[in-house]
């Protein structure tokens, strides 16, 4: 399978994503510049983290109008896997590919530290290599990850199993203290209705190797591989 890593002006996590796919998963991966309008021949798309367009106006607000986003929308509409990490998540929200919006962190601080995430739905293209309820250790680094949606949207996300990752304590409790940014319902990651678009604030690409001290992030990428290669028995 072939991976695309989309690069916007101001993206800064593309090297880490490329490294994990090329050197850890040992799979073909290419950068796609935001002015490109085609994603032909790719099997999975990563929108990496960073500060696209300097976060001007709102995070992701300008990047969502980049030429490549038409191709990303078509890719998602075809049912293929798209993962937005951090700023990539913010872009997916602004583009309307995922519901809700991000506010400044409740603490008003840029938070950069490890978090613990409970896998709330292990039957997705992004989590099929995890056990239901498994707690993953993956770091965050963001100033605007305070997820907000209206009550009806939240209820629907919860009812349909679309809250995929939730901030928890190391032993798996979704307490206020485990919530690094004020996100409603401790939400760290959600999928779209069809289940093929994931947005998550934590960075699995910097937690995918023993050398770096955290390996759980690799499960996210390995799940996508299993999904694309048809080896995931229980995802949709």
């Amino acid at each position, binding site marked *: 399978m072939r991976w695309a890593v989309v690069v916007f002006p101001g993206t800064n996590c593309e090297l880490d994503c490329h490294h994990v796919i090329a050197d850890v998963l040992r799979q073909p991966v290419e950068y796609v510049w935001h002015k490109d309008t085609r994603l032909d021949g790719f099997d999975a798309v990563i929108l990496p983290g960073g500060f696209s367009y300097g976060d001007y106006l709102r995070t992701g607000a300008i990047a969502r*109008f980049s030429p490549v986003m038409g191709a990303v929308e078509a890719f998602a509409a075809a049912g293929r896997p798209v993962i937005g990490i951090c700023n990539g998540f913010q872009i997916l*929200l602004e583009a309307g590919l995922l519901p809700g*919006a991000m*506010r*400044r962190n409740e603490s*008003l601080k840029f938070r950069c530290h490890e978090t613990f995430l409970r896998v709330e739905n292990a039957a997705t293209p992004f989590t099929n290599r995890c056990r239901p309820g498994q707690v993953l250790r993956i770091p965050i680094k963001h100033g605007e990850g305070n997820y907000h949606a*209206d009550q009806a949207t939240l209820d629907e996300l919860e009812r349909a199993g679309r809250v995929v990752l939730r901030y928890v304590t190391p032993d798996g409790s979704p307490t206020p203290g485990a919530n690094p940014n*004020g996100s409603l319902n401790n939400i760290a990651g959600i999928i779209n209705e069809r289940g093929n678009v994931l947005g998550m604030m934590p960075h699995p690409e910097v937690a995918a190797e023993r050398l770096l001290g955290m390996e759980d992030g690799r499960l996210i990428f390995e799940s996508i591989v299993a999904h694309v290669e048809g080896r995931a028995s229980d995802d949709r």
Partner: protein
Amino acid sequence: MTSDVGPEGDPSMTAARSWKVRVYVTLKQGVLDPQGRAVENALRVLGFTEAADVRVGKYIELGLKAPDREAAAGRVAEMCRRLLANPVIEQYRYDVIEGDA
């Protein structure tokens, strides 16, 4: 260039006039505003104990050409909907003033 010819409402009068627009974007009521809360706390610390309901928003100004105020306002509303505000958490209002100043 400001055109001052043609009666009001004459469809043949399409010459563009200059408008100055002031857009105010704020978080919707009910959406927690962490910045507003921090500013409010700081004001209270400074002794402005009467300060309440502080909300931090954005102010955007721009100029545009349009044949009349209605057309200008219509374009600005579209700008707000598509880019300047995020309708999920923000609300907006704007003033349209004739002239370049």
